[in-house]
């Protein structure tokens, strides 16, 4: 269905600034990732020193031999044009969110709205980090938010640096995609 012309799957990591997209791709890519990070001059939006303004690119081979191309988007809304370029033809979109950031549930809506048109034939997975921080919404709150929108999409909890957690998120859209299930589609 959404394999690329070379028979590979394309998975897109998206989500707001500082959610861990670049880190997640670096954690699992079997090749040195392509990065387009520059100095972050907007420390009000996020305190981190650098930010991705083009895209990240990595590659992994799954146990069954499928090759998955991993793309990471910039997180700021002013890079919306890159979201649409990168989302095209994706077999799966992984929305990474930091539960410890204020407005994480609203951010979920922003990215779901932007990427739903691109995953009509693929899958949407939500990865939530820092759910253990005090006074943060739980993974269930994110799942309920998706459910309220009539979306069947798994909301998983894992830290961006944990290879196992990232791999679970990548395998989810690939396996959903492989089984032609309707996950991630509006019900």
């Amino acid at each position: 269905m959404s394999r690329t012309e070379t028979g590979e799957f394309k998975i897109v990591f998206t989500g707001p600034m500082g959610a861990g997209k670049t880190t997640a791709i670096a954690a699992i890519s079997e090749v040195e990732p392509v990065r387009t990070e520059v100095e972050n001059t907007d420390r009000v939006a996020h305190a981190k020193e650098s930010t991705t303004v083009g895209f990240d690119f990595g590659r992994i081979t799954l146990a069954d031999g499928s090759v998955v191309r991993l793309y990471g988007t910039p997180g700021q809304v002013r890079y919306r044009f890159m979201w649409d370029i990168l989302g095209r033809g994706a077999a799966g979109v992984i929305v990474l969110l930091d539960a410890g950031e204020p407005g994480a549930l609203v951010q979920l809506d922003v990215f779901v709205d932007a990427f739903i048109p691109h995953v009509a034939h693929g899958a949407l997975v939500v990865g939530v980090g820092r759910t253990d921080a005090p006074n943060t919404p739980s993974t269930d709150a994110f799942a309920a938010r998706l459910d309220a929108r009539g979306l069947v999409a798994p909301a998983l909890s894992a830290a961006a640096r944990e290879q196992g957690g990232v791999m679970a998120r990548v395998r989810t859209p690939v396996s959903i995609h492989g089984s032609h299930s309707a996950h991630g589609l509006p019900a």
Partner: protein
Amino acid sequence: MSSMRPAKLSRELARKVLEGYGEVAGVQCAVLFSSDGFEIASHAADTAASARLAAIGSSLAALGTALAGEAGLGNFERTTIESDGGAVTIMRVGSSRSMSLAVVAGKDAVLGQLLWATQRCCQALAKLLDP
């Protein structure tokens, strides 16, 4: 750490430098932007257009940097997008990686003139950054 913050550059002085594009045939607008896509100064572009040009320009500069690095060709200097309606050139300002300039020109512009004017403009902006 962040000694290269574009805030150190006077936006007013930068805008004055960009006004020089009023003399260059075919140039429609020019936007100076930070490497993370914020407009610093502009010439003949409305706010919405310059914000978009700044974001897209910063992505292209970052991709240019990644491509030059991948090919082992050193630092990104400039890239020019040519289309059937004209050209956009994106040039790094000075030796810092903190800002670039995007200049949009119509079909009536001469590419060599556009590149030459842009190089001179970037040199003038670099002097403002590091007098």
